[in-house]
């Protein structure tokens, strides 16, 4: 513990919640509800208010009221009865270091007082935490702070394979939070990032070894991804006592935004398949399934249990109970509420331990009381009568496929999508500006944030089809490739012998001033990237080797010609290699195979249409499939182009759907601040930063999916993606499987 010379201010009351400028899952109503529970220790309201619900799937599931029962029992057994909890609540693993010490102690003490279980996270055991009985010790890839006595100190061992906020990536305690005490417990130098890389253990032998060594129940924690039901089955067969499944939206102390927002599946979507598959195989009895990720109240708890979980884990809800105001500063080390602040020898403020403990004790009691009220209204006396009772649920506004994956009834939603036209919302604009360094101090690196994702379609409104597409995060069965430790090749080989650094092609629009066009072309070339230049033959002529253009200047990387009626029958054209630009529409899909006979590739441009426009995702996927059916895909180049591709996330998904390269412009212009004011030197510096950030993000998404060679492994690899509650007619045209299915 740090030596304290000056008495710090002890925080023992809640701060006002700042106005939320972006749409948040943890909105003011939710925060106030948790605060009420924490202050009173009594039930406030068992059912959520309509205005606090988000767009996530769990918020569109409702419980049927049944024959009322009295005095329902909330006791919960885990690991074949070896652990009894007074309530089906696990305090999610948050490490000493990511939290500031006092919260760690309060969490462990509250678990003891209320008779539940608290995870320690991977950061070493704080002496005060060690005094608590009801703790579970985490074994993760960095082995921070584990020795025999530590493993022996808890009621159970949790082997951490992955987490919902960043599946496929390891733990990351930013260097700013590695202060002297943390340096001592983790045994790494002060100020260095504490990275827990991808777990390379063989899971089966680690489970077996931990069981033999400690004699305690052993759980495995994973993030919910494409293959979670199969991983759960595997983990059960390996002899673990349970699985902790952490879904999309789960909190984190620090995560790259591109991964947090795009990788992983909501927990409610995978729990039913996990439960059913384990039952089918006769492995469900005595094996515990604990769900986490956006569990915000007793209603969420009851619904997740009815979907098939034995208990839930709380993370963000705990922090809110301790006073968190959800301002997403955990990774900076300067948390105003002293919960996730860095640990200093002379802190100016500290959380009041007694006050904090009391809040958590009240939270559990109030939460449990609300759960009891729900059980009584629904008509279940004991928790085991609730687990897997999908008949108690019904869906509203969920599509047919989602209802079937969930195994619940309800009126299916219409088979159509509604897109929010506000593509460049406040959060996206800020994010792009952080990449260039226009905002914040980390230009040129991946953008980092903390706490759970507010991304569409679950919290924010979806703006493109790609918002319903989730990327895979590799873990357990397929090791993730840690981008910080493995070599990831983003280079793309092209049919004309060129090689580009990554599959992103900046588009240089006609409307740009010519000095800025020059900057784009120059910077792109310095990165080994192609650029698509509209007009400006003079610029094209100056160095055509890495340019894609409609002009006929000799020596271009690719010549472009726009589709004109009748071209499919053949046409005169000497320029080579030649790309034909089509639109993103039904007619273009039909034309693609015939046009390819006369060209070296196609550009599918979303800003062009020859009739019945379609979202670019659909057009690219359909064109890729039809070319493959004809056996003519692999020798040809397919470029997806759109002004509203927002960044690497959209580009990565389009490549997975079959594009070789993705071209866009507006995201770059927003990123470098073109719409504000700009000079040439700044433009160049910022554009370089943005491209570096994008390159890093591309590597992160690939790494998370276990991909080391982007081109060979990603193009058209639909296994690496799932849709979530996307209209079935759209999903089928993407040839993707729906998330959560076994």
């Amino acid at each position, binding site marked *: 513990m740090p030596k304290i010379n000056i008495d710090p201010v002890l925080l023992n009351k809640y701060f006002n919640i700042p106005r939320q400028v972006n749409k948040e899952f943890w909105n003011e109503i939710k925060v106030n509800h948790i605060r009420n529970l924490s202050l009173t220790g009594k039930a406030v309201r068992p059912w959520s208010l309509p205005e606090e619900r988000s767009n996530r799937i769990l918020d569109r599931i409702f419980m049927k009221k049944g024959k009322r029962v009295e005095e329902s029992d909330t006791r919960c057994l885990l690991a074949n009865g070896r652990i009894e909890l007074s309530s089906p609540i696990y305090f999610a693993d948050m490490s000493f270091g990511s939290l500031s010490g006092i919260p760690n102690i309060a969490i462990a003490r509250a678990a003891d007082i209320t008779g539940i279980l608290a995870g320690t996270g991977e950061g070493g055991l704080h002496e005060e935490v060690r005094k608590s009985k009801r703790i579970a010790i985490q074994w993760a890839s960095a082995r921070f702070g584990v020795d025999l006595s530590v493993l022996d100190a808890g009621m159970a061992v949790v082997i951490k394979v992955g987490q919902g906020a960043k599946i496929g990536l390891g733990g990351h305690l930013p260097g700013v939070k590695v202060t002297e005490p943390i340096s001592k417990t983790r*045994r*790494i130098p002060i100020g260095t990032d504490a990275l827990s890389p991808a777990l390379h253990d063989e899971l089966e032998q680690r489970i077996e070894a931990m069981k033999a060594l400690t004699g305690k129940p052993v759980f495995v924690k994973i993030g919910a991804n494409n293959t979670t039901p199969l991983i759960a089955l595997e983990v059960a067969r390996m002899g673990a006592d349970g699985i902790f499944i952490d879904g999309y939206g789960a909190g984190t102390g620090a995560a790259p935004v591109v991964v947090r927002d795009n990788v992983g599946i909501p927990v409610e979507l995978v729990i039913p398949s996990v439960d059913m598959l384990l039952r089918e195989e006769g492995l469900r009895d005595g094996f515990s399934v604990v769900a986490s990720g956006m569990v915000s109240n007793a209603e969420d708890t009851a619904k997740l249990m009815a979907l098939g979980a034995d208990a839930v884990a709380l993370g963000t809800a705990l922090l809110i109970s301790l006073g968190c105001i959800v301002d997403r500063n955990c990774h900076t080390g300067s948390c105003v509420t002293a919960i996730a602040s860095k640990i200093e020898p002379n802190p100016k403020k500290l959380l009041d331990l007694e006050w904090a403990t009391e809040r958590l004790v009240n939270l559990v009691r109030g939460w449990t009381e609300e759960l009891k009220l729900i059980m009584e209204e629904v008509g279940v006396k004991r928790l085991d009568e609730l687990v897997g009772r999908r008949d108690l649920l019904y869906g509203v506004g969920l599509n047919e496929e989602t209802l079937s994956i969930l195994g619940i009834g309800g009126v299916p939603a219409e088979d159509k999508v509604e897109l929010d036209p506000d593509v460049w919302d406040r959060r996206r604009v800020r994010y792009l500006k952080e990449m260039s360094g226009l905002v914040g101090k980390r230009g040129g690196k991946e953008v980092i944030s903390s706490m759970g994702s507010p991304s569409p379609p679950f919290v924010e409104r979806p703006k493109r089809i790609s918002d319903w597409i989730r990327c895979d995060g590799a873990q357990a069965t*397929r*090791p993730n*490739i840690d981008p910080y430790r493995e070599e990831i090749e983003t280079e793309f080989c092209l049919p004309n012998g060129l*090689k580009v650094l990554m599959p992103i092609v900046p588009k240089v629009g006609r409307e740009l001033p010519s000095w800025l066009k020059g900057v784009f072309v120059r910077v792109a070339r310095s*990165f080994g990237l192609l650029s698509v230049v509209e007009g400006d033959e003079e610029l094209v002529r100056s160095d055509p080797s890495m340019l894609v253009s409609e002009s006929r200047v000799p020596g271009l990387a690719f010549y472009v010609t726009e589709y004109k009626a009748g071209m499919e029958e053949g046409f005169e054209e000497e320029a080579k290699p030649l790309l034909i630009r089509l639109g993103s529409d039904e007619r273009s899909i039909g034309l693609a195979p015939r046009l390819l006979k006369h060209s070296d590739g196609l550009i599918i441009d979303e800003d062009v249409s020859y009739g019945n426009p379609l979202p670019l995702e659909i057009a690219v996927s359909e064109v890729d499939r039809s070319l493959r059916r004809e056996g003519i895909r692999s020798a040809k180049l397919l470029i997806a182009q759109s002004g509203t591709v927002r960044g690497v996330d959209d580009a990565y998904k389009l490549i997975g759907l079959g594009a070789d390269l993705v071209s866009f412009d507006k995201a770059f212009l927003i990123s470098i601040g073109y719409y504000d004011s700009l000079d040439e030197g700044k433009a160049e510096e910022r554009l370089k930063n943005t491209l570096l950030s994008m390159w890093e993000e591309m590597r992160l998404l690939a790494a998370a999916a276990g991909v080391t060679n982007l081109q060979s492994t990603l193009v058209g690899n639909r296994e690496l993606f799932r849709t979530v509650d996307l209209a079935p007619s759209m999903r089928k045209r993407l040839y993707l499987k729906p998330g959560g299915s076994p």
Partner: protein
Amino acid sequence: MTGTCSILGILRLKGEAKIPFSTLLKGVEAVRPRGSKLGVGFASVDLEGPELLRVKAFADGPETLERIKSGLASSGGELVREEPSPAGRPFLLWTGYFRCGDYDGFFRSILDLNSKLSEGGFRGRILQSSRHVDLYKEVGASPREVADHFGLDGREADLWLAQTGLPTSFPSSLPTWPCPFSSSEWVVAHDGEVSSFGANVEYLKEKGWKGFVGADSEVIAFLLDELTRVEGLGVEDAAKLLNRPYGRKPWSKNWSTEELFRFRGASLDGSYSIVAGYSDGEDVYMLVLVDRARFRPMVIGIDDGHVYAASEECEIRAISPNARVYTLEPGRYMLASMNRGIVEYGRSGLSCWFTELGPFGEPQATGQAKVIDASAMDSLTLYQEVSSAIRGGHKELVLKHVNGQRYIGIGAPEGVRLSVYGTPGNCLGNLNSGAEIHVYGNAGDLVGDAMHAGRIVIHGDARDVVGQALQGGEIFVRGNVGNRGAIQMREYGTKRPYLIVGNVADDYFGEYMAGGIAIVLGLDCLLKGCDRQLVGDYLATGMVGGRIYVRGKVRPQSVGLRPLDEFGVAHEWKSAKVEYRRLNDEDLKLIGDKVLSFFKEFKLDPELYDRVMDSYFTVVTVK
């Protein structure tokens, strides 16, 4: 799959008798704790196959079988004879012998039939159609039971392949999922999970392949078949394409950019260890591939007349106790031919890699030592035996006939000395808090993980991830270590851990190192006059503290993750400080005594010590 899967392949060399099935089974049964009962498959490859094509199919009942047979009747082949299904299985297994002129056409119609069967919801499938390859696989049975069901006792082959454990955990009682998978004259067993699966399927579909079960091994078999039989690549080129060539590795074929573009989707990515059998009608081959991070284990064994490939060394030891054993370099392949011997070893400079230690013979135990014979014990039984002996007050334990048992010495306390004779399995001495463990043989993966005190001395090699999160005490390995040695080592207070490697290390040595000292001496290289670099690539990636000493020069491009790529973009790490120099006084103070104690431990020539300490070292620290 993560730990449920085990592979073993054996190829005989010319002049040697055919391999009896019992030999294979001996190896398979050495890893019973590793393989599950979920599925097991065997395959044989023989140069002298039947004149006719052997087509094997399974079906859940007579109706499905009829559908298969009628489908085959219109496939362009002529059914010459058939074998009825043997009894004792929950499904029908049918074998038909076909004569056909157009093999490629016949094969396409089988793909078509399999595709129609699965689309039509039939629970049945054609498993193989080949002259040289024969498959025997089943779900929910032990290796012994499968052998009985197929009457394999007494069978002999040029190449045997075995895989236990399902490749993916799909529930079924039909042998749809177990490995190996066959495609014409290829047969493939695979451990791991490839992230390229979806891209591989798209690639194959474009070339007309269909009727996929969805298993990785199947797709790999299809790819090998497509690339060799259809695309016309040689076996080695196909192997090089599957192990996608990449920048830093000197052995990758120099594919042109255009070829790499055209073949996108045909390479493997993710985690894999693959053993494939193949016959082109003139020879029989065993091809072994490992991924570039070597995520899944794979060991190669060689004796006078055979080449072995196994997930764990104990499988080879059970068959051939004195075989020479080595591992592939990450991202490489081994190709052995029955007629020509090993064509490609998959490791450069093998002669100075082999350390020629052992055999160590029978253990020497003093009077007080407790001797435990591990021969009939599985990992957990041995672990319990050792634990109870320690609890019973025994300070000195000798474990003999150890072969593959894991977790030896986990949690053994200070004052205990364990002598291990044989080939211990993974996780030796994890969380060691003071015990002394001596291994007379090679150790497996994860030696000394999260060790805090004590000593581990290996009189042989250690495989991947030795000394991970080593925080105190010392690990001496006389021979070589695999990938990711000394990763996340750290020190605190007066505890400074040491890892000393007698010969060489593979990639990622000292990755994320935060403290302690790791040393690579290259003794056998020195003795044999070989001046190769003693460590692989990515040395000290992400290092934040501690020191690494590698005797001799390490190329700058082998240090760190990506010092500078071809586009001139530097990827920043807290960069390591690399010096190439003679040891100075500070160095000698830090490592002199430890290296001397290493020499004494292994009874090495003191003159060699002087030569080593007088050498130039690459010293890596943090700026």
